[in-house]
Each structure stands twice: as C-alpha cells, then as structure tokens.
C-alpha cells in the first residue's frame, strides 16, 4: 500500500504553542459554506433506484387514467373524480385529474417513504454515525435531510403533472382550457397554472414531511417511521371526514390538500393557497422543533 499520497494540507499539531489553545490559525481548517452536503444529499436521493421507482409509480397514475379513458368508448359524465369527464375533450386535464386521485394516498405514501427514511435510514445503514463524526453537525444534517424530503415533494408533484400533461397531449386533443368559473384560458396560461398547482401540492406535503422527519429521529428502523408517517396521513383524512370532529378540521395538515382547484378559477382564488401555506408552515415549525429537540440530545447507538 503506497503511503504519503494524501496531501498534508492541514497542519498537524505536534508543535503547539504552550500557552495558546489548541487550534492555532494554521490548524483551523478553512470552512466551506456547507452546500456540498446538500448537493450530496440530493444526488444520493435522486440516484437511488427506490426514488425512481416511487416517481415512476406516481407517473403511472396519469398514464393509467389517460389510457383507461382512451380505451373506454363512452365517457360517463358525473362519475369518477372531478375533471375526469373533461379529459377526453382536452388532454390537459389528465394531470389535474391524476393529482386529485393521487393526493389522498399515493402521494402521502411516497412522501412517507422518503421522509420516514431521512434519519432512520441513515441509522440503519450505519452511516448516521459517520456523517455526524465527519462532522456534519446535527442541526445541519437535520436541515439538509428536510430540504431533501421537500425536494422530493416537488419532484413527486411535478412528476404527476408533467406525466399527465404529456400523456394527455399524446392521447387526446389539446386546446384552450375552460376554468371552473366558466372563462377560458389559452394553453400557455393553463400550463403555467398547472405548474402553480404542482407548487401548491408540494407545499401541501411539507407538513407531512416534517412529521416524517420527526418520527424518523425517534427510531432506527426506517420501515417503522415510514409506516407511521403514512398511517398519520390516512388518519388525518379519516378525521377530516368525520363531522363530529369538525373543531379539529382546521388544524389537520390534510385540510387544504384538495384546495388546489382554486387555482383553476378566474380570477385565481389565493385564499386557500395562503391558508394552506400558513398551516404547513405551522407544522414545519412544530415538528421541526420536535425533531431538533429529539435529534440534538439523542444518543447515536446505531
């Protein structure tokens, strides 16, 4: 094994001034801004086959919807999710329809997998201790992990919208979109609104991601954290349909999940967008604080 290959650019500390503390100016390594870890996190996340499998599963939803409608001869107006009957007239509606189908279960499922895996996944690989002694810094690692999960939320929402728009354009006629309020907008503006909807859905999932991050700090078993996160998403929606628990509804992170249809009105109704953003921000603050408190004092035994 050849030695002396590693450049000794950090001064070793054999000769220390006797009265000075142990880090002299020369021995203190220059700090990088710290974006490398975030870049690495995103790179690892989006290089994993699992991430691609999740995104492909999401892309399959609009594709399945579009193909099913194309193959069925008679559209059945009034049945199925909103916009379904409009798809055969205008392929641009495939993406929105698919989002309505995906948001109660499929999207939270994929988010649960990624957010539940954040810390517990590293613990199960044994990489958590090596990241921490690198040293990544516990707070920095937590923030980077959360940004990674948020990036996945965006990727997931965009996947559904883009896959839907593309398959819709391939299988159906594309034309000006008639909004919920009756006015018609051109294809360009419609696409811009779909992007805004993807943004809305991304924000909708940030609260759940924060919950997943917190659960991920309390266990070393990623599957447990994933299952718990997904279960909470389902439970929140069950609570959301029980009239007896109506007082609780404004506080549920899933309360405004379907509010993105407001972006298809003219003029755009931003009220639900604002309410949703505020609610999700609250979840991020609360569960971010829980995760911080838990992770900062946690004994890393994995």
């Amino acid at each position, binding site marked *: 094994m050849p030695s002396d*290959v*590693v*450049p000794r650019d*950090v001064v070793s500390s054999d000769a220390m001034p006797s009265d000075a*503390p142990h880090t002299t100016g020369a021995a203190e390594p220059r700090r990088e801004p710290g974006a490398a870890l975030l870049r690495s996190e995103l790179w690892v996340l989006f290089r994993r086959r699992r991430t691609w499998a999740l995104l492909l599963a999401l892309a399959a939803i609009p594709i399945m919807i579009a193909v099913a409608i194309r193959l069925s001869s008679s559209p059945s107006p009034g049945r199925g999710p909103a916009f379904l009957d409009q798809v055969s007239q205008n392929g641009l509606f495939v993406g929105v329809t698919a989002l309505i189908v995906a948001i109660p279960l499929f999207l939270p499922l994929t988010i649960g997998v990624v957010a539940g895996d954040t810390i517990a996944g590293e613990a199960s690989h044994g990489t958590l201790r090596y990241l921490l002694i690198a*040293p*990544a810094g516990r707070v920095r690692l937590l923030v980077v992990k959360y940004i990674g999960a948020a990036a996945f939320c965006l990727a997931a929402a965009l996947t559904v919208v883009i896959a839907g728009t593309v398959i819709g354009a391939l299988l159906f006629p594309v034309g000006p979109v008639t909004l919920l309020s009756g006015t018609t907008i051109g294809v360009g503006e419609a696409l811009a609104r779909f992007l805004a909807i993807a943004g809305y859905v991304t924000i909708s999932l940030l609260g759940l991601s924060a919950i997943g991050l917190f659960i991920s700090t309390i266990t070393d078993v990623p599957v447990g954290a994933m299952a718990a996160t997904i279960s909470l998403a389902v439970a929140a929606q069950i609570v959301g349909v029980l009239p007896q628990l109506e007082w609780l509804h404004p506080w549920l992170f899933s309360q405004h999940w379907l509010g993105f249809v407001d972006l298809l009105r003219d003029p755009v109704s931003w009220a639900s967008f604002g309410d949703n953003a505020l609610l999700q921000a609250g979840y991020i603050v609360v569960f971010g604080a829980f995760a911080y408190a838990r992770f900062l004092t946690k004994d890393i035994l994995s």
Partner: protein
Amino acid sequence: MTTTDERDLAIETMGLTKRFGSQIAVNAIDLAVPRGSVFGFLGPNGSGKTTSIRMMLGLVAPSSGQVRVLGRAVPRHLPEVLPRVGALVEGPGFYPFLSGSANLRRLDSADRGAPSATRRGRVDAALDRVGLSHAAGKKVGAYSLGMKQRLGIANALLVPRDLLVLDEPTNGLDPQGTREVRHLIRTLADGGTTVFVSSHLLAEIEQMCTHAAVMSVGGLVAQGTLDDLRKVGEARICLLTPDGDLAIRVLSRLGLESSAAPEPDAECLVTASVSVGADAVTGAPLAGPGVRPGPLPAPEAIVAALVAEGVRVRGFSVQQASLEERFVALTGEGFDIAQ
C-alpha cells in the same frame, strides 16, 4: 513523565460514566492517551469500549464525567475537534447502493473543512492507501466484509488527521489485510498521528501499540505503556527441591507466599507467586517507573538465602506472567460476556 500535562494528551477522560437505565456501561474511567502514541484499548466484548469511543466522538452524551479530545472539551468543542479526528466506530457503515468511491465522497462532503475541489483526488488517494482502488467503482453492497472494513479505514484517512480512533480495525480482515492494517497504523503513527485502537485481541495490541489500557465490565482496570503492563503482574518462582517444608519457611521469611507439590522421584516443586506492583498501574494513568511497591527480591538473593539454610536447590526459575495471562487475570476468562 510522572506528571501528565494535559497538552500532551490526545484523549483524556475524567470520571467518564455512561448509564443506560440502571445498567452502567462505562464506569468512571480516567483514560490518558498521550499524543503520538499508538494506544491499544483492550477488553472483552461488552466491556464498554465502543460506548467510551462513542462518548469521545460526541455520538453519546456521558451520564457524568468529562472528555477532552486533542485538548478540547467534548462535546462542547466537537465542531473544531472532529475534523481533526478520523474514526472507525463499531464496524463500517455505508450505503450499499453506492459505489465505494461515491460513499467516500458522500461522507467527505459532510465535513465542511474538507475542500470540495480536492475531494475526488483525496478519495482516490485514500482508496489507494487501503488497497481498494480496483473496487472503487463497485457497489458497496457487493463488497466483502473485509473490503467494507478497508473502506471504513479509508474514510478515516480522507483528510490528514491528528488523531485516529479505530474500533476493531482488523475485524473481518484476512491475515494479509491484518498485516496491511498494522503496517498502515505504524506508518500513520510515524507521521505523528496519534492512533487509538480498540480490540479484544491482545496479540494485535501487542504487535502494534506503544501504550494500552484494559477495560473490564465497564471499568478501566489497567493502563500504561506496554512495557509497564508487562512488568506488572504476577511473577512466579519455581523451585525444585527435596526439602519442601524448609524451602517454604525460607521463602515466607522473604515475604513470599509459597506452596509445595510432591513431584516424582521424591522431590518437591515449590512454587511461590508474588504480585509485583499491581497497584501502580491499576487505575493510575502512566505511573512512572520506580513507584511500584514490593519488588520481587533478586533471584540470586533468593537462591543464596535458600542455599544458606541448607535447601538443596535442584532447579530454580522465575517466570514472568505473559501479557496474555495478565489480560485474562484482569478481564476474566471464558465466554461470559460482561454484564
């Protein structure tokens, strides 16, 4: 070196204790690892070695006591200390779906002191150093245990370090790999790096360390230079004589506990054992020479005394306990995992 200036210590613990519930994993250990040493941290499985290492690296918070690493209090100064420490803790940990070099780049990117510009070069150099260049592009999931272990060591060498903490570094390595790791550790120590190696294998420690500490059931039972540890312990006198009872009387006058066992052809084997200065090393970090109480009388003086009393000495030998006997005496024998 009778006083150990704290500046000379790469790792220092004071009353370091870790409790998990009612169980005490590490019990008030006072460890002193001199800078520049190759320090062996010895103990059977479950004796608290890894927990101690985790506390030194800030992964586990001590229940009480203090740790100083490279002269600075941990965990308060971890951000300044850790970039200067390379570590392998309780086996390697890697992403199985990434290649060896991608794994190292990932872990290196977590260190803000490690420049991104040189990352690729440093990763290649570290892989080369542990002989893994040929497998750099292979997924770690396909690595053997020994290869993962080498990758773990490479991870500790990504930037030049002042201190290396290697927990069981030769675990899973073949004899060739073990030799390479020993050679690597020696090379690093020659370059001025302090190396703290834990092991449950005495032979390994004996071959590469200058200092050692012995853990047993969460407590530190001995530490010092390897020579000190060797000197200390049971020495045994074996005397072959037909005059057993007389010999025992003479020996007890010299302060030696002895016993006689009948041997064939009407002779007696008298054995006397004496503990030499066990107190000096046990629990006292790096005690200097000459402070050991009760040295063994010179062998020739014993023989002279025996002969003067008319004991027919037909065989006489002084047997120093081996480090292994000492280790077993300190930590207990058998498969009883320390509780």
